[in-house]
């Protein structure tokens, strides 16, 4: 299996001198959905931004399809890596279809004009995320769940081989959490790769094939979910208040448990 995305010993320091990453590595293969888990402040989101080329690592390398991410021109990079942010710092005052069309930017020609093909890709992306009905609404009119699905739709329209997804299910109800993960899983089944940073260990358990655990800016363990989502691995990271169980299909369940020990 060819690795699409390879990161080796990535370190990053914010300008105030805080070291957010101190050696994070991973490999992501074609057709793989991998979850990155770890406690708050363990560097997951920073790692994702380094992988996406939005931050330049202090040391270490990130290689996508054989080329270093930091050396790629921005449009070329966007054709290979799409980011689904946790939220937008500012909601653009545009219609959903125009926002999703933004995902086509890297594919547009010299004069940056959208072709009928681009519009078709946008419509298909929206309907695959079950958001076709909101395409002419303003971004500011959407509910949290709709907004999250539109962000995923834009990443789909970007047609990049690798999706980097940051906390996609925060503030979503269970049905919408599943919907978002399903649309990511569908893309992966179609041959793309996805890396999902998440706090939701149980969704990771159901949808990811592997999980990577981060702690204090390092990737400390990785492996198939049923071997990572265990008391031996998670207790040193998250502490003792965890309850472990199994779904009907045998996949692990991990939930916070106030009465542990």
């Amino acid at each position, binding site marked *: 299996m060819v690795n699409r995305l390879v990161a080796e010993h990535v370190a990053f320091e914010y*300008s105030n001198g805080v070291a957010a990453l101190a050696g994070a590595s991973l490999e992501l293969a074609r057709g793989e959905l991998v979850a990155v888990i770890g406690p708050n402040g363990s560097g997951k989101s920073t790692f994702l*931004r380094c992988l*996406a*080329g*939005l931050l330049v690592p202090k040391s270490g390398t990130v290689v996508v399809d054989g080329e270093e991410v930091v050396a790629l*021109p*921005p*449009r*070329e*990079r*966007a*054709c290979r890596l*799409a*980011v689904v*942010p946790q939220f*937008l*710092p*500012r*909601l*653009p*005052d*545009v219609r959903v279809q*125009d*926002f999703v069309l*933004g*995902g086509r*930017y*890297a594919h*547009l020609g010299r*004069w*940056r004009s959208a072709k009928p093909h681009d519009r078709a890709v946008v419509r298909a992306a929206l309907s695959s995320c079950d958001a076709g009905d909101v395409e002419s609404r303003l971004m500011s009119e959407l509910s949290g769940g709709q907004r999250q699905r539109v962000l995923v739709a*834009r990443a789909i329209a*970007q047609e990049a081989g690798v999706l980097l997804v940051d906390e996609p299910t925060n503030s979503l109800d269970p049905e919408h959490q599943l919907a978002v993960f399903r649309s990511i899983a569908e893309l992966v089944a179609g041959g793309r790769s996805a890396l999902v940073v998440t706090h939701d260990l149980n969704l990771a358990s159901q949808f990811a094939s592997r999980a990577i655990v981060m702690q204090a800016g390092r990737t400390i363990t990785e492996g198939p979910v049923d071997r990572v989502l265990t008391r031996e691995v998670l207790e040193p990271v998250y502490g003792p208040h965890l309850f472990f169980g199994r779904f009907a299909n045998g996949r692990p369940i991990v939930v916070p448990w106030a009465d542990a020990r």
Partner: protein
Amino acid sequence: MSSNARRVRLCAVVFVVLLGALFFGSLCFGTTVRFSTGEAWRGLIALLGLGEPLETASRQTILELRVWRALVTIGVGAALALSGGYIQGLFQNGLASPSLIGVTGGAALGAAVAVLIVGGYAPRLVLESLGGNAYLIPLFGFAGAFGTTALVVYLSSGGGRTSVTSLLLTGIAVNMCVAGLFAAIQSLTLENWEVSRAILAWTFGTLDDRSGYHAGVVFSGLALAAACIPFTAVELDLLKGGEADAQSVGVDVKRLKWLAIFAAAVSAAAAVAVAGQIAFVGLVVPHLVRLAIGASHRVLLWLSMLGGAVFLLGAEFAQRWLLGDAALQPGVVMALIGGPFFLVLLVRERKEISAW
């Protein structure tokens, strides 16, 4: 066609028709002679070398002066509004204007230095080596505007990246320094009536006695800035979700910032170099156009250009018509209209501003 596309088209048509009518009106009406439309048309044809000039040479001269005046007014209005469109897009703030990055203050300083040189404060050799003084003020105004903006951008881009906040703060600081120097020059020349009058007059802005040279300067700046539109408009739209978001879909944010600042500086610098300080066109016009047609920079920037030309030419035409000889300098008129307008904007958007 969507309702927005219809609105854009309507807006463009209205602007073009208004611009044509105002241009022709500005040729016919003035503080001195009044031309019939036929006469104005013949004079215009003659100016293009396609017909006989008007019967008396003085009438032809007056008409030609009015043509240059109107053209420079159009160019200045368009350039200031386009510059404002870029700055508001880049700062993602509908209340930003070109003066933020030091364009206006820098141009004032450059022009004041030029007035000093012309006024005999520099060694004769300097004036002679610069060759005449008719071109000096626009030249120095342009250099001052561009130099100051370059300084603001350079100082605010420490650590390899230019954040919009640091750009804003550096702009305020550099504007203060420039204003200090400008005040020093004014204070130095306080006793020299002619020189201080020239400096003061420049700060009011002027569109009188403009020539083909002035039109050339302002339209060159405008053309350069307009040439950047196809390479920045979609990118400015994508900036609406934040810088990191634009970067993630493939926008070269660094290049976008440089291009937008260059375009904003070159067009505003060209405008203030030929016409002095005319504030508020750059703030008001793009803001109103955005309210009318929505916020996509693909149309916003072009329509701001047209709108700026209509706005300034219309204001000039109206006050000449209403006030005649008592007409005020354009910079003064714009300040009188612009100040209250800015207040109205602040009150209207109070809710949004309190969230800053």
